[in-house]
């Protein structure tokens, strides 16, 4: 058929228009925003590494992307992570069903990420969420604390968890992330800010005093950095009296050596030259920290592994302190207890191995006694105040304080340092056994160790603070701390104690006899080195037997004592032989000297004759 020119022109125009439209729609379709990147980008620069072959669930690149390189991906695909962090923002922009800005706005990107990568993405912002354990208390990362109660019948369920930092309800509840109940169908279209219109927070149960009164979080004081400057000293060193003392103390401290200066604990601006600026709250000035805040203040550095690593210092002091008697009482508001500065000093903090430090081992008993020997202070706690006096007179006190023997325990060795608490009765053997390990091993096989809290532990016979030099006399007698205090002499146990006592008596007597013989031999000038060695072996046997008596088994004890007896007897025999030899020598000496004197006499007689002859001749 023949079309007229104008009709043909119109047809062409219409076709072009349709074509254009098609093209445009196609273009529009093509311009549809490419899927966002639902996963963090750190360490994932090589997109094609997964997406080329569709590894690990990653969507495979479409065919039309062939030939494109890793660098080109980000030109079109944007990260969806910002949206994931602030889903509230995103959802408010999309009040209804997911929009075309699918990948960017909806948190449905999140479950995709979860499904594909397997990693659980944080569904809420970090602001105000630094303490994860605040909500995620025990094992199991459910946001739901224990003790959640069900909703009243028929009403909307209560919110069973704290609301801090959880303004965006839908972040978890839309898809049921982390065990959160999923919003029902009839809630479609509702936004996070509408939830609390019906759902009320649960009335939180009375938190246990321990949990509610847990110590403050270690938080560094924010203040301008000094870069080596410390103008605080310029004034405080010159004010005289206590102020100057403080600065002198600080300058001698180990903190000063490490550039931990005034502002790090008190806040303020260490570069300012006027008091107003230096000590302004704006500069973070805190002044004298409250006693209850001191542990957290110290812990802000000393519990930080990264900072303390270079000094090879442990970082568990705060955790230990929080569990100690001192820490628990402080958390309850008792400011009479010891905090960090009470023991370590405030400004004059020195290393523990510095003899001038209050926590130097030799100084620890006096330090603890500064509170624990104060009757008025301890009255309200019902704690006795004689521990220092008892300790001072004990073998441990004597060794540490008189002989400077640092193997001896201080208060802290048995009670703990930062986590100080008196060991329970059942723990005593382990505390004493940390040094007296051989004795503990023997004790643990005995009937005493197996009787639980009703049978004696170390302190029962040896005392807690007033540990005295144990003697064999503990085996006999009926006074407290003696075997006879519990076991009558004619009981089987009493007889065992008596037989041990007799055996010790005999062997120590043999040892003393050998020692005396050796000394006599030495006084006569005889060399008895071998006998001295044997005597030392006997002593070792006796010491072993003394430890072994904690097994309460005669046979074990007798084995060591028999060896000791044999060694002592051998030493004595050798020494006696040396003495006999010395006597023989002296007798021989008399004979030899007598012979010499005789000969000399004869010669002298001859000399006299010669002299007489000479005189006669002259």
């Amino acid at each position, binding site marked *: 058929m023949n079309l007229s020119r104008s009709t043909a022109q119109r047809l062409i125009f219409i076709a072009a228009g349709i074509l254009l439209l098609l093209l445009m729609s196609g273009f529009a379709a093509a311009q549809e925003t490419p899927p966002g990147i639902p996963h963090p980008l750190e360490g994932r620069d090589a997109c094609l590494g997964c997406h080329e072959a569709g590894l690990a669930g990653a969507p495979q690149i479409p065919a039309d992307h062939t030939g494109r390189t890793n660098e080109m991906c980000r030109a079109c695909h944007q990260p969806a992570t910002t949206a994931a962090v602030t889903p509230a923002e995103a959802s408010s922009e999309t009040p209804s069903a997911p929009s075309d800005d699918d990948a960017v706005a909806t948190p449905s990107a999140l479950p995709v990420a979860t499904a594909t990568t397997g990693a659980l993405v944080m569904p809420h912002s970090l602001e105000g969420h630094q303490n994860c354990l605040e909500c995620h208390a025990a094992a199991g990362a459910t946001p739901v604390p224990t003790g959640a109660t069900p909703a009243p019948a028929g009403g909307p369920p209560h919110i069973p968890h704290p609301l801090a930092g959880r303004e965006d309800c839908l972040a978890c509840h839309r898809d049921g992330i982390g065990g959160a109940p999923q919003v029902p169908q009839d809630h479609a279209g509702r936004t996070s800010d509408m939830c609390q219109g019906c759902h009320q927070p649960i009335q939180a149960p009375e938190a246990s005093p321990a949990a509610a009164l847990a110590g403050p979080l270690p938080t560094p004081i924010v203040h301008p950095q000094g870069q080596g400057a410390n103008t605080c000293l310029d004034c405080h060193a010159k004010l005289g009296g206590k102020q100057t003392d403080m600065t002198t103390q600080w300058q001698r401290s180990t903190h000063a050596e490490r550039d931990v200066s005034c502002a790090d604990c008190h806040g303020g601006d260490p570069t300012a030259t006027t008091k107003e600026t230096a000590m302004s709250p704006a500069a973070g000035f805190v002044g004298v920290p409250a006693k209850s805040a001191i542990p957290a203040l110290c812990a802000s550095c000393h519990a930080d592994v990264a900072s303390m690593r270079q000094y090879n210092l442990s970082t568990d002091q705060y955790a230990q302190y929080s569990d100690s008697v001192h820490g628990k009482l402080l958390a309850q508001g008792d400011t009479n207890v010891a905090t960090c500065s009470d023991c370590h000093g405030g400004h004059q903090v020195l290393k523990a191995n510095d003899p001038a430090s209050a926590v130097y081992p030799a100084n620890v008993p006096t330090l603890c006694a500064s509170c624990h020997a104060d009757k008025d202070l301890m009255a309200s706690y019902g704690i006795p105040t004689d521990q220092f006096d008892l300790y001072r007179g004990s073998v441990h006190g004597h060794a540490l304080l008189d002989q400077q023997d640092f193997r001896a325990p201080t208060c802290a060795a048995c009670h703990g340092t930062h986590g100080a608490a008196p060991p329970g009765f059942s723990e005593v053997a382990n505390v004493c056994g940390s040094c007296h390990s051989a004795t503990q091993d023997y004790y643990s096989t005995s009937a005493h160790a197996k009787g639980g809290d009703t049978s004696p532990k170390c302190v029962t016979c040896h005392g807690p603070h007033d540990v005295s030099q144990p003697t064999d006399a503990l085996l006999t007698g009926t006074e407290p701390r003696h075997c006879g205090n519990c076991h009558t002499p004619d009981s089987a146990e009493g007889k065992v104690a008596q037989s041990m006592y007799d055996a010790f008596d005999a062997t120590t007597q043999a040892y003393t006899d050998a020692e005396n013989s050796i000394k006599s031999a030495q006084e006569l000038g*005889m060399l008895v080195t071998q006998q001295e060695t044997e005597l030392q072996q006997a002593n070792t046997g006796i010491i072993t037997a003394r430890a072994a008596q904690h097994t309460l088994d005669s046979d074990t004890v007798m084995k060591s004592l028999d060896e000791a007896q044999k060694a002592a007897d051998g030493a004595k025999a050798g020494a006696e032989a040396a003495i006999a030899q010395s006597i023989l020598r002296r007798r021989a000496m008399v004979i030899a000297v007598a012979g010499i004197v005789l000969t000399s006499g004869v010669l002298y007689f001859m*000399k006299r004759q010669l002299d007489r002859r*000479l005189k006669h001749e002259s």
Partner: protein
Amino acid sequence: MKTMEAKPSMGRRAWNWLDLRYKLGPLFEALLHVEIPISARTFYLGGITLFFFMVQAITGILLAIYYQPTPEAAHKSILFIMNSVNFGWLIRSIHSWGANLMILFCVMHLLRVFFQAAYKAPREVTWVVGIVLLVATLGFGFTGYLLPWDQRAFWATTVGSEIAGAVPLVGPKLLIFLRSGTEVTARTLSRFFGMHVLVLPLSLVGALLVHIVMVHQQGLADPKRKMADPNEVALASAPASGSEPETKRKLLPFFPNYVLDEVIAWYVMLAVLIVLASLFPAGLEAPANPLLTPAHTKPEWYFLFLYQWLKLVPRIVGVALPILGGLLLVLLPFFDRNPYIAARRRPIAITIATITLIGVVAFTIWGWRS
């Protein structure tokens, strides 16, 4: 008529046989005819010192049979000698006491010679050789002390060699030479053993021969003579002029009189040695431990005066004075210009000597008790 000749004894015939070949006659004449003035009062101190040296040589040889001069074996070998070798304890104890007595009598002999002015002309060189003998004797004491390698030996040697190191100029080099290094080690022990057993015995015997020959040549000094006279020996051996018999010295026969006297003195000293060795046998401390310094370390008694002196005064003074004193001692005959023999005519010498002697004894006692 046949004259009955008595057949000479076997001894006589042996003597004649040797004399014919070696002209023993004149040799023995010289040896046995030493001039001993009748007024001589030696107290046999020099002879006793010689006796002790002979005892040391014999007992030393016996000890050297069993002693092992290494740090690992030394102490054990001493214990073996003391406990297991027949009479080992006696030999070692005699050697230990003999050393102390030899030094004591050597010093007493020096004092006798000084106070009797026997060092003056013509006996100057005899005196110098005698000082050499004294130094050698002290060297014996110092080197022998280390050989047991016990704590006392090790640390006393450490302290003693430090004193040697304090000498100006040569001190540090002397210290390293003595110790064969900067510390007392196995090399020190080797060196000391070699000195004690080879170098010093040969040196001492050589000097001793010279000393004894000199004494024999000149005879003993007469303490009653008025003045020192360089011509004394020449005059004495000059043919008798016959004019002044009364000035001729009265002499005691060296053999047998003086020799017998000496032998008696030696026997008495032997008895003393046996008594001391039996009642106070030589001790032995724990094996040497270079890492464990004993609380109190002292050198042996004959160095105590020096040790105490050095503790008291600044190092310069402490070192200078003994060195000066030593030089004085060696060169004494050459700058003591006073010819008189009698003590009352030598006030300065006697005074200085007495004060020095008292000082040395006092410092020794002080050092002992500190």
